[in-house]
């Protein structure tokens, strides 16, 4: 029997057709249902983390007021807030949520290539979340070691949750990584193997490029976290000394000897820095598509954008120790890591230029998704530029471990990706639900979120320059922190609480619109990419009806001179009257033969 490319094996889609409520909505193997399961779980646990941030801000803004937030609680709150937001919300939402939903639809596939494993991935992720949540209910509560979980402190007396909490955290992370690996292998294989005819790699929408590269980073980076989690569990339960040196514990000589706390930091950040890009690259990709669609213009410099994603992904593995300039590692590392870190600014800057140049001479529709996309550019420019402070080893010295760092990473890794998440949800909401959301509420949500978050994080940078340290429950009496800084803290807390409450507008809008929103057009934004061209909205199981789509062009044929409409869908065959003007269009003429897929 002749080999049939995976992309062309139509019949397989029928093997796991849902026929009962349970197989359709619970044990579903449909990537779209799994995406929604992932998304809702991530948002649910993210709301817990949001509440935790509110509690810690209450303590910082109004110290000596709330006796139910003691230092023990506070350090637990910051730890769980950080870990949930980074791993269980952002990573899961971008890859498990958007990755799952968009990959098959945007590359013209019926589903992921391993649907069962995809389903398993979600349920294992849910297990990881439940283990994490369980740590709130065990003796001693969750770990309060900070989200970086640095040993020896994470498993030594003096830290909250060193008996149960830290073990549950580490086990939960290990389980999460198992879930991610199952999902991640699936995404990579699907992108490489299941693209429809004509969908060459260089015709893929940047959303897919971003998700694809982020998944590869995850597959390479998470194992470092997995081994460090296992080693720390061994240190804690069996008394090994991977990370534990000879030390005192609660006034006694501990039985550890010869381990290296810095080894853990290297492993952690070898995962941790790529993790930043695991979150950022999907955001980069998605925002590129939002800007292009709503500016009715091709993304500027598509090829450069793809290369920048690859370059950033590659470089992200050789910059990790910039998190460790003051860790006590060999100081000569500073030269190397400062250099690599600042080099990564170049491809990142190119991406920013190209986003802005996509707007230039565009036809900008300030829809709700577009507001979030442009808002992202603003916050990302801010967060990216402050990264140049912390990446440059000497500049980092006064700023490291201060509120400058908190301000920086929340701008670049909190606010910016979250703005993209919101933009993306608004953008694809009509396709996912078949209904439109309320535009006015969407705009309120955008403005309050953007201005609110900026008023939280901008002042933090200046508190950091003053020298106000992070991870402090209270500041007591110091000579150099003036009363005005504490007043600012109160103001920041008020902003934070407002921003938190504003998210209710979003939730209300989404929930109301799912049930009551007006019916959406199948392609309300007049976009070119395949997910908008499904026969049904929302797309049915198998996505494409009887025939898979065939792609003839890249995803960015907007406002092509001479075309009848200001967009040409990817599956529209080349038009004889349309004169080609560039190499992308040249590629179009050869399609679909140039993707190398053997003919069945």
């Amino acid at each position, binding site marked *: 029997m002749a080999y049939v490319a995976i992309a062309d094996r139509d019949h397989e889609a029928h093997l796991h057709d849902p026929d009962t409520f349970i197989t359709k909505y619970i044990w579903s193997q449909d990537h779209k249902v799994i995406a929604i399961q992932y998304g809702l779980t991530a948002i649910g646990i993210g709301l817990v983390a949001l509440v935790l941030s509110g509690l810690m801000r209450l303590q910082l803004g109004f110290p000596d007021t709330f006796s139910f937030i*003691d230092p023990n609680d506070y350090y637990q709150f910051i730890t769980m807030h950080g870990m949930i937001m980074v791993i269980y919300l952002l990573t899961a939402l971008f890859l498990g949520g958007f990755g799952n939903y968009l990959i098959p639809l945007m590359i013209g596939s019926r589903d992921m290539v391993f649907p069962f494993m995809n389903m398993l991935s979600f349920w294992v992720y849910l297990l990881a979340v439940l283990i994490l949540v369980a740590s709130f209910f065990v003796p001693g509560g969750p770990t309060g070691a900070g989200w970086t979980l640095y040993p020896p402190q994470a498993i030594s007396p003096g830290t909250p949750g060193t008996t149960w909490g830290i073990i549950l955290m580490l086990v939960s992370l290990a389980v999460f990584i198992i879930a991610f690996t199952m999902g991640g292998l699936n995404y990579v294989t699907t992108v490489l193997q299941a693209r429809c005819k004509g969908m060459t790699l260089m015709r893929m929408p940047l959303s897919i490029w971003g998700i694809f590269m982020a998944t590869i980073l995850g597959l390479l980076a998470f194992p470092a976290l997995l081994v460090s989690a296992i080693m720390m569990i061994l240190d804690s339960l069996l008394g090994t000394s991977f990370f534990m040196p000879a030390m005192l514990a609660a006034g006694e000589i501990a039985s550890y000897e010869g381990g290296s706390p810095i080894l853990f930091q290297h492993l952690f950040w070898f995962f941790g820095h790529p993790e930043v890009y695991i979150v950022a690259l999907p955001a980069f990709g998605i925002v590129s598509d939002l800007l292009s669609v709503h500016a009715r213009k091709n993304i500027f410099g598509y090829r450069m954008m793809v290369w920048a994603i690859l370059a950033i992904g590659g470089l992200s593995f050789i910059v990790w120790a910039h998190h460790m300039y003051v860790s006590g590692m060999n100081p000569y590392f500073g030269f190397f890591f400062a250099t690599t870190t600042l080099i990564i600014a170049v491809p990142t800057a190119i991406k920013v230029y190209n986003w802005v140049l996509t707007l230039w001479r565009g036809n900008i529709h300030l829809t709700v998704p577009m507001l979030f996309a442009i808002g992202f550019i603003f916050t990302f420019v801010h967060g990216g530029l402050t990264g140049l402070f912390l990446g440059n080893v000497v500049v980092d010295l006064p700023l490291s471990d201060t509120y400058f760092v908190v301000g920086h990473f929340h701008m670049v890794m909190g606010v910016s990706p979250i703005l993209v998440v919101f933009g993306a949800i608004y953008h694809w909401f009509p396709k996912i639900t078949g209904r439109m959301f309320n535009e006015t509420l969407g705009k309120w949500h955008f403005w309050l979120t953007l201005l609110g978050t900026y008023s939280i994080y901008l002042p933090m940078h200046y508190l950091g320059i003053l020298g106000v340290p992070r991870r402090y429950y209270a500041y007591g009496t110091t000579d150099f922190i003036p009363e005005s800084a504490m007043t600012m803290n109160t103001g920041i807390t008020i902003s934070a609480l407002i921003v938190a409450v504003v998210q209710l507008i979003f939730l209300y809008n989404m929930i109301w619109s799912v049930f009551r929103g007006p019916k959406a057009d199948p392609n309300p934004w007049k976009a070119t990419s395949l997910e908008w061209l499904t026969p049904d909205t929302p797309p049915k199981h198998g996505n494409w009806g009887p025939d898979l789509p065939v792609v003839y062009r890249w995803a960015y044929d907007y406002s092509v001179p001479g075309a009848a409409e200001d967009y040409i869908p990817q599956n529209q065959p080349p038009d004889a009257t349309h004169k080609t003007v560039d190499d992308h269009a040249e590629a179009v003429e050869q399609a679909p033969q140039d993707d190398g897929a053997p003919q069945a």
Partner: protein
Amino acid sequence: MAFAVVIILLVIGTVTFHFASPWWFTPIASNWGMIDTTVIITFWVTGIVFVAVNLFMAYAVVKYRHRKDVRAHYEPENSKLETWLTVITTIGVALMLAPGLFVWAKVIDAPEGAAEVEVVGQQWHWSYRYPGPDGTFGQVEHKLISRDNPFGMIAEDPAGQDDILVSSPVLHLPVNQPVKLLLRSKDVLHNFAVAEFRLKMDLVPGMVTYFWVEPTQVGEYDILCEELCGVGHHTMQGRVVVESQEDFDAWLAQQPNFASLAEQPAGDPVAGQALYAVCSACHGADGEGNQVVNAPKLAGQEWTYLERQLHNYKDGVRGTAEGDALGAQMAGMAATLPTDQAVRDVVAYIGTLPDNRPQSTVTGNADNGKRLYTTCQFCHGPQGQGYWTMNAPRLSGMSDWYMADQIVKFRDGLRGSHPRDLYGRQMAMMADLFQDEQALNDLVAYLNEL
């Protein structure tokens, strides 16, 4: 239009905030002005990019906003422009990186002849060691750390005999002298940071890290721990006193060295018994305490704590706050102990007294007290037994009314507010939790159960 206006206003607002912000670098007190310069260079380069990119974006949003019947321009790429932007960005990056690396090379290279001082961190306080006249530190061994040898000195090492040991969070440094700080931790990660010096570095158990600095301004500065080290992290504060060489030398001469500490006779309970006669009038013949005269139980208390408090009273560090009449009374009594040896003797005698649990006088909800005690137990121990390493006294089986009174004093600034009472300050930061009477009673009720 409105959108672009807001972006422009955000840019103007950010720049205004930058220049108007009252929060900026503390006045520098070290030789590291170069670090400030690299920060300023970075501000200029990034500031220009921030303003340029965002204003250009705002302009584009206004100029190319959607109009009927107008199409976007079709231009997939423009290699010339992209190359040009890449080159400019690379230059900007180099502009920041080059001075950064140049200064870093100086930061990591301590000058020949810099004095060395060891900084020792532990949960949650600082202590220091100077090499003494021979300029060489004695060897230390982690396993030797004990209440009698908190630095873990190897007694046989001749180089260590003259090492000067400072068991206080106050570091003294001479002005205009380069000093290399050798950083060592006894337990977990810490970070030694002085905002006015601009430098910081982690203390890592199992190894010695360092940085060097030349203090240039006489004065006192806060030392903060800036690496999360557990529940007491935010209370791990110290002070660095930068003073003239003469003042420094005078101070150093008063500090005991390892040999003299080792030779120091232990407290003599027999001598202490005579001295205790004065104390017994209030604290009782068996040190059982007497609430009527506000005298707490002493028997069974951690001796390091008793010694420290007697010294605090003697030195005017405790009992001098305005409104602390009872403390002032005790300060007067402590002054009758003429010498350090007398303090040791009397504490040694207290150590021989029978340790009986006093009558409970405070009632409250012990279950709630247990919840409140969650944070306290990190220093005072799950059983309220106290940890000498954390300078935390024993709480279980001690006078409950006294503990309640002291928490109120800590909270209200009558205790722990003296600039030299840095351990007291730690407790003051924690006592802020007890804003109401009920919580206090609940806590003490729980302590009575331990």
